[in-house]
């Protein structure tokens, strides 16, 4: 998916977007973040052509969206919105398979798919016959996500899907979504104004303000080498815990595996440095073995001193940061 110089102008010369360009690679979890009214939702709605750009081009699946039939385009993109927008007159089953129904998929197949989807979002089959009003906020949003997955789209766009949930439910759903992303390998374009959420979820993020894209990069890149004063200010609010949380173990300077001093606690590469630090503290050790997700293969060693050095550099304002 790519955006090229996308501009959106409303009547009376109000500019919602000014020359926004960026790309999202396949399999990425890309967060668009910025204060309200910065144009991130506008940008998102252009992906499935609910809005049309005034100028510029948008490519989805390598093809200009203008060349797509809007209906076919929308059916090939999963769409989740903040208000969830479940159909109150349809059961959970019918809600989840709505896209399939309008595509004319036979009922038997839809039934089957609904059961699979419930498994994916971790709800049991008793939910099939329920109506949205009988669900809690978190369950509704899960169904909303399942609905977006129904037609097995490669790309899913989400507009602040967890904005209306309480903190605990939101964190839980974020974890589940990360897990889903890892398992299903979908490309996700995620709009949020919650910095913590963006840093936690995204593989890359784009910071927007006033209709402009100020910086695009991986969380630790943006944190450690902010391309714009606003990005620095916006991202720098959380202090060092935020930095630790935003950087994954795999992105930190790791040491080559040597002789291990006895048994070391381990940490997966995808975990955050905050998590790594927690494990160090809990085990009262200065060294962690870093392992690959799934296989458990040892990749390297993370030393407490390296963590400190990294934070030191951040606090000193040294803007150069390279992965060892």
């Amino acid at each position: 998916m790519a955006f090229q110089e996308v501009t959106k102008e409303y009547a009376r010369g109000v500019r919602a977007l000014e020359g926004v360009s960026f790309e999202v690679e396949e399999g990425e979890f890309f967060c668009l973040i910025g204060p309200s009214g910065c144009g991130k939702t506008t940008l998102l709605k252009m992906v499935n052509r609910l809005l049309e750009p005034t100028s510029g081009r948008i490519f989805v699946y390598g093809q200009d969206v203008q060349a797509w039939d809007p209906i076919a385009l929308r059916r090939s993109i999963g769409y989740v919105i903040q208000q969830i927008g479940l159909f109150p007159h349809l059961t959970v089953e019918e809600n989840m398979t709505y896209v399939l129904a309008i595509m004319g998929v036979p009922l038997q197949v839809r039934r089957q798919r609904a059961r699979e989807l419930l498994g994916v979002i971790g709800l049991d089959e008793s939910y099939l016959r329920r109506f949205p009003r009988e669900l809690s906020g978190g369950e509704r949003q899960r169904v909303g996500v399942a609905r977006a997955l129904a037609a097995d789209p490669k790309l899913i766009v989400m507009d602040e899907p967890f904005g209306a949930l309480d903190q605990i439910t939101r964190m839980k759903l974020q974890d589940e979504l990360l897990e889903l992303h890892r398992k299903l390998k979908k490309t996700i374009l995620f709009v949020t104004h919650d910095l913590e959420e963006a840093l936690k979820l995204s593989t890359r993020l784009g910071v927007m303000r006033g209709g402009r894209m100020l910086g695009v990069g991986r969380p630790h890149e943006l944190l450690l080498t902010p391309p714009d004063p606003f990005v620095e200010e916006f991202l720098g609010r959380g202090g060092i815990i935020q930095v630790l949380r935003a950087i994954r173990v795999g992105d930190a300077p790791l040491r080559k595996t040597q002789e291990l001093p006895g048994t070391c606690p381990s940490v997966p590469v995808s975990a955050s440095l905050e998590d790594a630090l927690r494990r160090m503290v809990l085990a009262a050790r200065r060294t962690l073995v870093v392992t690959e997700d799934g296989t458990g293969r040892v990749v390297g060693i993370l030393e407490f001193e390296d963590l400190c050095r990294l934070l030191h550099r951040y606090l000193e304002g040294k803007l150069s940061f390279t992965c060892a």
Partner: protein
Amino acid sequence: MAFFIRVLLLAVERKSLVLSSLREHVVISLLACLFIALCGVPLGILIARFRRVAFWVIATTGVLYTIPALALFGFMIPLFGIGLRPTLFALFIYGLLPLVRNTYVGITTVDPAIVEAAKGMGSTDWQLLWRVQIPLALPVIVAGLRTVVVMTISYGHPLPPSSVRGVWGCSSSVASPLTIPSSSCLGVSWSLHLPLGLMGCSLSLKGGS
């Protein structure tokens, strides 16, 4: 008490007339409701789609609704004469407003988030209408229809000028024999309307969602 007994006796005495009038009244009310539903709902859907004309269409049905019944007959007797056609036409005109307006309001007040979700998932306009907007607007549309049914039953009475013979509906059974004392006549007329009106009311209260 004596009054009610006289009413009852009158009704029994003219049983066949009362029954045939009752039948006519039911038929004419149902016919009118049918026409109103067939035109009103599609019209409401259309103006929900083309909102620019919505104001004018609803205003027009509103103006039609304000025409006094008697005045309307002044217009229609030269045009249609008397009988079934003008009665149906008048009922149609009066019944249009509640149904068109309710249909329009029902469809346009469906939660925009739901409409956006349906659109964003790739519904065609037709699918959006049939699968989302109409089902969600149905309670409001049906409420309009119930109003129309009650209104149509009650309006069946004053429409045909009572001094004209050959008009349709319950009023004719009262009006045709001019020799009968008028208070009793009205009593019969009302006692005929009452059960119909109650039927209409019970329809409109049932499942009043």
